[in-house]
């Protein structure tokens, strides 16, 4: 099955994506379309509080589907600026627009170099088999 993996994003092998579309070191994190399809219907989303500090590679939340419970890993170290409250209320909508309204948290990254070892769209696509 073919899924969309925007070229402008960076990816973790644990299926989170990171977007850095401004210069202020703010990173938007979500879950890839592939992972959401694998998980099936999402029923619960647990996200950190605004102001929480996150460590790169550490758990920052939980996503629960009918099939499984998965930990969310942060692609960068930094501080939580915003979280998607609408999605906490209606987690089943995450799959409607994973790279848009389906974002999870916005993080003020301590160091954007944290993303240097993240995967490109092509590398991620290879990893999940297209």
């Amino acid at each position, binding site marked *: 099955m073919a899924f969309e993996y925007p070229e402008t994003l960076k990816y973790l092998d644990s299926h989170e994506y990171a977007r850095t579309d401004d210069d202020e070191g703010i990173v938007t994190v979500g879950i890839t379309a592939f992972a959401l399809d694998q998980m*099936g*219907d999402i*029923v*619960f989303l647990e996200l950190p509080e605004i102001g929480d500090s996150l460590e790169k590679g550490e758990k920052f939340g*939980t996503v*629960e589907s*009918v*099939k499984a*419970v998965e930990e969310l890993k942060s692609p960068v170290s930094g501080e939580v600026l915003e979280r998607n409250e609408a999605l906490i209320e209606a*987690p089943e909508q995450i799959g409607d627009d994973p790279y848009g309204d389906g974002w999870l948290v916005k993080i003020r990254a301590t160091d954007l170099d944290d993303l240097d070892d993240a995967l490109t769209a092509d590398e991620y696509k290879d990893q999940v088999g297209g």
Partner: protein
Amino acid sequence: MTLLQTPLYSACVEQKARMTEFAGWSMPVQFSGIKQEHQAVRQRAGLFDISHMGKFELRGPGVIAALQTLVPSNLGRLTQGQAQYTVLLNPEGGIIDDLIVYLKSSPVGSGTGLETVALIVNAATTDKDKTWLLEHLAGTGIELVDESRDRALISIQGPAAAALLQPHTSLELNALGRFAHRDTALLGQMAWVARTGYTGEDGFEIMTDPDTALALWQTLTEAGAAPCGLGARDTLRLEAAMALYGQDIDDTTSPPEAGLGWLVHLDEKGDFIGRSVLEQQRAEGVSRRLVGLAMTGRHIARHDYPVLYQGDRVGTITSGTLAPTLNIPIALAYVAAPLAKVGQVLEVEVRGEPQGATVVKRPFYRAK
């Protein structure tokens, strides 16, 4: 390990099924999606490949009498063309498997004094059951034919099941009662049709040769039955509070503990394996019972999660899901017998956090 493939494997792959390993078989887990498939069965009709299930035919003298010693139910209630749900028990009263026993021809019906009985058992327990049966039928003159890998089994379930199947058989489907079964012709080929299922809806389970099964699968999907996978099969059976072997019931759980006391007919029959334990449980009661739980929040209570009461561990979740029809998380759990009453408020420990749950009536869902 090479996985076994049912006769419908290629049809499922062609219909874009996501396949998974189940009991050594490669089986479809979902086609269009669990929720859509689930609703198709509740509202219209769904089609399941259940060819992986164990299929035995027992032929010879006194088959029912021999089976009576292995199950707690009175199989003497069976008449030709009827079936009964029951369990095989071990000496400790634990459940070796749950199964359906079909009386295909009675001594009178066959005119020869011989009986033919079909058994449909779980896929994961087929070999274990076969060993147990052969051991206990030795010397009886009863022959066990294992058709598990040779015959196909299709299940069509849902309120429109009879209407979709009827054009392809001369058998008057609506005259077939629940748990009744017949040999008949389907698409011009020999088939065996039973009005049974594992979804809480009306429906039929159909055994045929592999080619006929393939033709029937195509015909019924073209007629509008939604192909369904094991994922929807699980959510459907759980809403109907039907036990899943290996999860809700196993060798260590007895029928009265598992809410299957209605299968035990102590006063109607003689000795059977496990009888003394069930007599003791009837006299003294059981210490735990299987209950239905409705979760207060959105978290799913999953297999092996602890059940708590006032902070103390009082039980264990055996199955849980988000019930698609009810749109709340539901679960089955063994809890201490004094707490096993409808309305009892409990907690389920979900990854370290206690979450509210209430004991509710089973089944969670009942077809109108």
